[in-house]
């Protein structure tokens, strides 16, 4: 299952609920305002880093770029994908759960 999170973790609980309800080994894609969760040095970084050990966590590059976030700021283990990579994630997982 691919889980998509499009909300900032500082504004809503979408990411928190996603991490609680995604089975270990899931794919998680951070997009739109969800990309802020991928950055190191924040109050949620530890939680996301730990989730990235049990799951595959991805961040949508075009959304990072638009918001001035650099790859160097990413939490270790998070992979950057473009829209084509997003498409592959949807195709490679057996369903998509949106956390809006």
């Amino acid at each position, binding site marked *: 299952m691919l889980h998509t999170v499009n909300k900032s973790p500082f504004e809503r*609980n979408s990411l928190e609920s996603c991490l609680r309800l995604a*089975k270990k080994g*899931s794919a998680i894609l951070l997009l739109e305002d969800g990309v802020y969760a991928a950055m190191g040095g924040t109050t949620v970084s530890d939680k996301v880093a730990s989730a990235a050990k049990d799951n595959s966590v991805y961040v949508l590059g075009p959304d990072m770029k638009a918001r001035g976030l650099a790859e160097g700021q990413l939490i270790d283990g998070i992979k950057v994908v473009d829209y084509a990579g997003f498409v592959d994630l949807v195709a490679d997982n057996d369903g998509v759960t949106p956390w809006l």
Partner: protein
Amino acid sequence: MAEYDFDTEGVKKTITFLNRKAPYGTIYALEVLESVLISAAFEQHANIVFVDDGVFQIKKGHDTADLEMKNFLPTYGIIEMEKEDADEDEDMDMNWRIIVEKESMEARGLTPDDFKVEVEVLSSAELADVLATSDAVIGG
């Protein structure tokens, strides 16, 4: 452009409706109900799931008169009836579950007695399994 002609003959899927928003403040709770009901017409399996503030959608005692908004709590009664009909009808292959996540419920000081409809209360881990085995998830 032209209407796409899907071949849905004999297709049976499990659609999960993931309700995470409180009622009335936004329209999400109301419009998702309409999509739940329509899936009955296609005899699809459905999980109607309440997580986070979504649990407030089915809290007893809504009275929207002062807001002049439609009280949609009775619609959940219709969903419950559809589910019961499907459960009782042996010829009908349609399995509906109405699920509340225990953690979300307890965090908001609610118990199963607070709900308008009969629900299955599942732990986060149990609900994770339900989500993982869904063919399509519609969030709201």
